[in-house]
């Protein structure tokens, strides 16, 4: 092992280069953050603790319930609806925080790696994030994401799922420090984010599996997504 990364971008590259599960790569990046920017790690811990206190895990639509409909623009401004995704099979709907989020990047790139298998299993995959098309378009190209990224304008859809939260002034300040400008990315000055979440929806529109990550540094394993889709066959 070469020397430990000394910046967050280096840490992201290092985490991604590991031949390990998504969970292990996310954990590696999180450990590096704790070492490189303990202030950010601490603020995140406090945020997660605050959100966890509210009602641990029961938030958002549950398994067996219908996933609320959406009709959101992709990076080219085309509207993509849940209904259109379900026409040919199940849908994997990934709620993501934004193009700037390293945890989302690790997750979406690992989903890109299994996209072929998802399609072979007859399913569609989309990511929904609050960023405007300017950012999602470049992001999808730069990361070679083969699935659409939909812009959730003003977090309306995430709100209809009950999955938005305010980042708080401390993290807002740290984001400013890191050059993360939610106001620019989202086109609003709310400083709100969606929870990271995954919903696997059957062709009947009902949720077959879900994972809502109040602890947004953890995500559903791509293997688990495939396992659910295989079970739905």
């Amino acid at each position: 092992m070469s020397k430990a990364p000394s910046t967050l971008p280096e840490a992201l590259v290092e985490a991604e280069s590991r031949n390990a599960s998504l969970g292990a790569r996310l954990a590696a990046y999180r450990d590096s953050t704790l070492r490189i920017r303990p202030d950010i790690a601490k603020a995140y811990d406090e945020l997660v603790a605050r959100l966890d206190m509210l009602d641990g895990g029961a938030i958002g639509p549950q398994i067996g319930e219908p996933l609320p409909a959406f009709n959101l623009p992709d990076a080219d401004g085309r509207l993509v609806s849940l209904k259109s995704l379900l026409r040919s099979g199940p849908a994997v709907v990934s709620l993501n925080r934004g193009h700037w989020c390293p945890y989302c990047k690790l997750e979406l790139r690992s989903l890109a790696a299994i996209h072929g298998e998802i399609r072979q299993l007859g399913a569609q995959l989309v990511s929904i994030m609050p960023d405007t098309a300017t950012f999602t378009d470049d992001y999808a190209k730069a990361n070679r994401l083969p699935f659409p990224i939909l812009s959730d304008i003003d977090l309306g859809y995430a709100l209809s799922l009950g999955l938005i939260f305010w980042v708080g002034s401390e993290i807002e300040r740290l984001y400013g420090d890191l050059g993360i400008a939610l106001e620019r990315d989202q086109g609003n000055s709310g400083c709100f984010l969606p929870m990271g979440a995954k919903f696997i929806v059957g062709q009947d529109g009902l949720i077959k599996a879900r994972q809502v990550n109040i602890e947004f540094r953890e995500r559903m394993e791509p293997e688990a997504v495939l396992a659910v889709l295989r079970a739905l066959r």
Partner: protein
Amino acid sequence: MELHQIRYFLALCAELNFTRAADRCDVAQSSLTRAIKLLETELGGALFHRGRANTHLTSLGERVKPFLARAHGEVQDACREAQDFARARTASLRLGLMRTLAPARSAALVAALRARRPDIDLQVTEAGAEALQERLLAGELDAAIYDLPGLGADVALDRLPLYREPFVAVVHAGHRLARHGAVRLSDLHGEPFLARVHCEHADVIDAARSGVDAPPAFRSDRDEWVLALAAAGLGYALMPAENVHPGTVALALADPAIAREIALVTLRGGKSPAVGALVHEAMRLCHRAAPVPDVAADAGLLVEAR
């Protein structure tokens, strides 16, 4: 954070009274109080100062309210849109364009919308900004593209900023400052001024010129005339950068920097699917378009007329 909590929060913002807010939402006051309390726990601070006769927003409440109102509006729009689609209503869209806009950008938007949504029956008219706003508010237009000083404050209207267009000073090619690139208004002191009386920003320009210059040498409500007179060396004009024609030279105006903020304006709430499609299309185009350079930042750059 749940949708109903936000609905209660916005009702309480409007009523500033727990009893009336609960009535408005058709829930027990205890439910509303509990929901607000939970929201306050989540946000880590009080949203309202509670007084016997005087409930009002805290600074945290003020901080989060505009966003929550927008997000809540999005959810309502989405519900309405879904219902409209279910009823398969024929989509029609009446769009107004501000008379003083250079047509290229608006034409691109109209063309893009027509290509993507040929099912929308699109009617486009042009008028002055004030007339457009009146017709929007009267329900005679579904959307309009314009700028009007003070527009941002109107609570009945949603305003999606499209682009920022600086005003430039227009002179003839042989003018002593034609090679200067950027000028201050004071550099033109004493020269004949060509006034565009139809300009929505005429007051702003008058204020900038006050005390600097004599009354205008010429007044017109047609940019062709103003440009022709400038080209003939009969004076200078101040106009939006994109309206300048060949035959004249546009000089960046460094002091005072004047700009208009062109926006797509729609009635707040209740957007039809057709308006939704236009908004999405406009977002796409304006995010892609190269931004018009900021005059102050680009002072020194010669802006040749097209």
